[in-house]
């Protein structure tokens, strides 16, 4: 089975995020980038399938942020081919533009199974994975925790998570695109020596694609940091008064049974 994985760069939330001068965008130049957590799970799931089924794994990423490090790390972990898509802007593409870019490259790869993180924390226009599935005209199931080979050839079995750790087992005819919430195992650690060896020995394939026009995105009027109190709001009074107030807060937040 040929598997393709999309690895996206997202702003690293350990840094204080800054807002661009126009007040509507992140200052991407000041951000640090890191691989999207859920995409990393998608890669792990692909590698687990490679180990159990002998699949080949191709990783696709946009030339953005710390992409080279991410690709070499993927290679060190076991990805067979690493592909970089040219991207010149300091800002990431809009949702449908991104889908068009990835789709064009993925079509050329001809994977039977495409794994993408089912979400990412920088998606104002909703998750990429289903949009990409639509662009590629592939069936989609997301919020999946675990992908296994199906009973029949040309199918896979996925485990879609619902609240309360309830899981629906579904079979999916291939080709398909799956939105991964978590791999069957935590993403593996690969020793740095391997990553450094990959930097020396693994070529990054550069794909050539035309950058599609950005469709009119939703219009951001203002981006801002929510006012968060530095310290907890203190609740005073007798034990009963405090208890009453806590119940009230829980009710307001919809946290009562």
């Amino acid at each position, binding site marked *: 089975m040929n598997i393709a994985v999309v690895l996206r760069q997202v702003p690293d939330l*350990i*840094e204080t995020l800054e807002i661009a001068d126009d007040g509507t965008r992140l200052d991407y130049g000041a951000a640090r980038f*890191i691989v999207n957590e859920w995409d990393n799970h998608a890669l792990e799931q692909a590698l687990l399938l490679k180990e159990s089924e002998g699949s080949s794994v191709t990783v696709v990423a946009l030339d953005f942020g710390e992409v080279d490090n991410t690709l070499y790390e993927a290679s060190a972990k076991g990805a067979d081919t690493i592909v970089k898509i040219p991207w010149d802007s300091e800002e990431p593409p809009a949702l449908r533009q991104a889908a068009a870019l990835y789709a064009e490259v993925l079509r050329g790869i001809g994977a039977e199974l495409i794994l993408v993180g089912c979400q990412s924390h920088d998606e104002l226009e909703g998750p990429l994975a289903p949009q990409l599935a639509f662009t590629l005209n592939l069936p989609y199931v997301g919020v999946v925790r675990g992908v296994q080979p199906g009973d029949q050839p040309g199918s896979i079995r996925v485990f879609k998570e619902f609240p309360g750790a309830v899981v629906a087992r579904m079979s999916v005819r291939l080709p398909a695109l799956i939105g991964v919430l978590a791999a069957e195992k935590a993403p593996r*650690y690969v*020793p740095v*020596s391997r990553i*450094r060896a990959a930097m020396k020995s693994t070529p990054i394939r550069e794909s050539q694609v035309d950058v599609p026009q950005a469709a009119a995105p939703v219009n951001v009027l203002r981006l801002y940091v929510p006012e968060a109190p530095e310290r907890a709001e203190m609740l005073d009074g007798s034990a009963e008064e405090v208890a009453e107030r806590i119940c009230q807060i829980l009710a307001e937040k919809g946290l009562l049974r």
Partner: protein
Amino acid sequence: MIQASKKAVDEGRTLTLLEEVLASPEGESVLTCMQCGVCSGSCPYGEVMKYPPRQIIQEAIAGADADLISSPSVWMCVGCYTCAKRCPRGIDLTDVVWPALRDQALQRGIQPPTELRVAFQNLYLYGNLLGISPRKRLDWAKDLDVTVRDLSRQPEPVEVLWLVGCYPSYYPRNQIVTRAMARLLTAMGVRWGVLGKDEKSLGDCDRLFGEEGLFELLVENNHKLFRQHQFDRLLLTDPHGFRALQKFYPRYGIEVPAQHYTMYLAEKIDQLKPLLVRAIEATVTYHDNCCVGRRCDCYEPPRELLRIIPGLKLVEMPRNREIALCCGGGGGGMWLDGHITEHGGKRLSDERVLEAAGTGANILAVSCPFELSRFEDSIKVTGLEGKLVVRDIIELLAESMGLEERKKA
């Protein structure tokens, strides 16, 4: 056999544990092992390891290392150097055998315990073990009442380049000590500077973790920094970093004069003494950290620093100097607590604070950044709160010098 191992390294072939040990400096010494078992008997976790140190060497030499490599024992060494210290053949198990074992595990795809994996990732991504932004590395100096030369912003020659370390830079309890150190150095008239956002871990822990590649990455980074800046010597808060500079950096051709702060201050004791104007009426016992103590046989400087504090009475724990019990935080131990507990190991720091309290001391003095939080935690768990407090030697000196924490006006 040694030649063959070195050849295997050159060829890039996957090594066996023995080959890896033999290919490393001092590795040949394992061939002299007579299986006496002193190492296993001395190891604080020897009893709960499936493969205690003696057996690790045995399996390595026998070439039957598959089960060993995947066993939990691989992640149970806390780098206390007791086995290495006591080995009658002088085999340096801590610096040679354990790192090779862990490297083998990592190279063969064994996943380290989650906590350690996170620490590795943090070091790789951010250059510190805590996973905090490098841009916040100098947050400890906010509102400090002395001048901090941040050489990453404005390079200038300094007498002392102070490598603050990860925990001392970021961890709230350690930041108090770090600020005290800044005041103390200033009060002594030292021209000192720090690397601010450019400073990264020296990497001693990851070498002991067996993450040689990560260590090399950090060595390269630090080497570049040492060449960029002008200084007479490096000053270290962290004994592990000191140890790395002293023993492992020279292997990469990096020879820089470096001192742990206890050594540096003890050298300046005549200058320090008249500044100690306030008495600290307390009974103090000192916990030898493993790197400066057992590893470098440097036991007196920290004690000299304590003895010159007026009013202070120094008492010794039964296990002191070369037989001091480790706090359990070294060699990756800070990130192995869950793993060690899961496999039956008790917290060494709990045992150690009880021993400290047994001396009648009301202060447990330390000189390693890991120890503060470990011992303070153990004091809570063992019910010693109110009876014993943990203070870094720096804090005690600063207090005696009358250098209270003051905010900038």
